[in-house]
């Protein structure tokens, strides 16, 4: 039984025919890590935003269902939907430098959800925050909780954001390119940390990224997106051995290999892009009929 089921989700630029998501369907089982890959503009981040209710005002959902633990989020009144998301979901954001409020100390930024939304006592929430910071290998949690974001490094801040995401023991975490903004050396540590935390807490994870290398390390299954359309939905092992869609094959071939540092970069061939684009347009036509 999957924890999150997205069925035929479509989204448009408000008041315009530009489609952002085209009948997207995907499932994330409880405790599963699913990768969501695609190039920039493929709509992968938009799916994450649609789940968490943070789509920009200029984008509207035109159809479909986002079913979280048996309830369609899109059918809930806004306030209820927000609280439900706050209780059962969390976000690991892309850029740790902008994702913490510069005018507030770290402690309250971790505990605020527990105290304000989940009605924990402040003492319990602070105890939990200290435990979590230790769990993400932050030395001296007490001091860090009293610090302001500008006093900490990018890697530290991403660790804090990961700790904060796990604070309320959510059932689903959306990680939106959580390593893209970091140095390569830090990237690996953070990736390892996310995998470690996910395994320990058994949280379902939707991992949004453009990096197949990252996907291969942490995910059990993945969805490949192009132009807001899901091209392929596979188990991880199947995907790397026998990708179903020509675009996936080209994407896989285009991924630089650490084993071959001198190899030239292979772009996705134009013919494949053209064929995929035609497929997206065909999907639109069949939707209109």
């Amino acid at each position, binding site marked *: 039984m999957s924890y999150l089921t997205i069925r035929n989700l479509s989204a448009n630029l408000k008041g315009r025919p530009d489609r952002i998501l085209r009948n997207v369907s995907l499932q994330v089982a409880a405790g599963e890590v699913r990768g969501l890959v695609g190039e920039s503009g493929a709509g992968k981040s938009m799916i994450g935003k649609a789940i*968490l*209710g*943070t789509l920009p*005002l200029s984008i509207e959902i035109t159809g479909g269902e986002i079913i979280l633990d048996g309830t369609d989020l899109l059918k809930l009144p806004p*306030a209820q939907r*927000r*609280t*439900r*998301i*706050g*209780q059962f*979901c*969390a*976000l690991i*954001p*892309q*850029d740790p430098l*902008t*994702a*913490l*409020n*510069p*005018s*507030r100390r770290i402690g309250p930024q971790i505990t*605020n*959800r527990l105290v*304000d*939304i989940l009605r924990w006592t402040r003492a319990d929430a602070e105890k939990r925050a200290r435990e979590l910071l230790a769990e993400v290998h932050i030395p001296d949690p007490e001091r860090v909780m009293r610090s*302001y974001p*500008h*006093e900490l490094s990018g890697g530290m801040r991403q660790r804090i*954001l990961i700790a904060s995401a796990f604070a309320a023991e959510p059932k689903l975490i959306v990680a939106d390119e959580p390593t893209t903004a970091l140095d390569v050396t830090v990237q690996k540590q953070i990736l390892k940390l996310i995998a470690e935390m996910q395994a320990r807490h058994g949280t379902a994870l939707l991992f949004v990224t453009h990096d197949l290398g990252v996907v291969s390390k942490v995910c059990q299954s993945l969805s490949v997106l192009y132009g807001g359309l899901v091209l392929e939905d596979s188990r991880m092992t199947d995907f790397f051995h026998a990708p179903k869609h020509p675009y996936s094959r080209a994407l896989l071939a285009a991924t630089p290999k650490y084993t071959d540092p001198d190899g030239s970069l292979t772009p996705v061939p134009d013919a494949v892009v053209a064929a995929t684009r035609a497929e997206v347009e065909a999907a639109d036509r069949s939707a209109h009929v």
Partner: protein
Amino acid sequence: MQLLQSVLTRLFTTLITLIGVAVIVFFVIRVVPGTPIAMMLPPGATEDDVARLTALYGLDKSIPQQFLIWLSGTLHGDFGTSITTRQPVLALVLSRLPATLELSIMALVIATAIGGFMALTGTRLRGTKTEAAIDISNGMALSVPDFLWGLILILGFGVLIPIFHISGRISPSLDLPFTSNFYLFESVLRLRFDLWADIVAHMFMPALALAIPLAAIIGQLLKQSLKETMHLDYVTLARTKGYGENHVILHEALPNAILPTLTLVGVQFTFLIGGTVIIERLFSYEGLGNMAIDAVINRDLPLIQGIVILFAVIFTAVNLLVDLCYAALNPRLRHA
């Protein structure tokens, strides 16, 4: 420690600024034509009368000599004697200062309240017709200067619907128990709310006239920086935690968005104090500004100098205060 040092540096630069202001004012008002003596003597006074009075006020000496005499007096706390009223300038000026301070602060409070409300409402309802209406009214409020707002208010709430007083600071028929000139403040301390209401009914329109353009500036800038802040990642993250729009605006966006507005309010507040000169005249409000106009008309040189120096002191004090507030609100500056 560092804070103390920066405050001391500021006080030192302030002192230099004040000396500069003093020099400029002293020479400029002596270069423009017209003397206080001509204003004081009745028609038909003889050359001798003029010479006698000129010598009495020390105006026969050369301008640099006069400056030195004035400067040494000032440094000892003696700002000279007003030519028209024959009272010490310092006492005169300080007796009027509370009225102007109360008026300016009331205007600032009104402007912050209106401007803040506009900005928060506009942000909460962004993309709606209400936001457009707020933008339009901000534009209108900005394009009309404060003295015109004064005239409009007098016409509206002084003449057509007379609910406020249009002149003076307090009704002359009232017995005043006050020991200071901070009438508004003291009326609250003495719990004399009857007097307080009368003072507010006098102050409200001039304060509002001063406040309207400032409110528009605050509203526009704060709304702009709130809108930019609302797109930042930490605001999005707060939404995913389950917080609603109001909480996100007030607790996540506002503390950061308010910083650029604060700097501007400091600058604009000094303009507002400058604006009291005309507004006080318009409403016959007995403050420094009104006194300044009389002093200029009568060429009361010592009084003009005293008033200008005092205005300069207020300006620098306000700017220092704004910088301190900014440091207190911005954790990145507190430790830097």
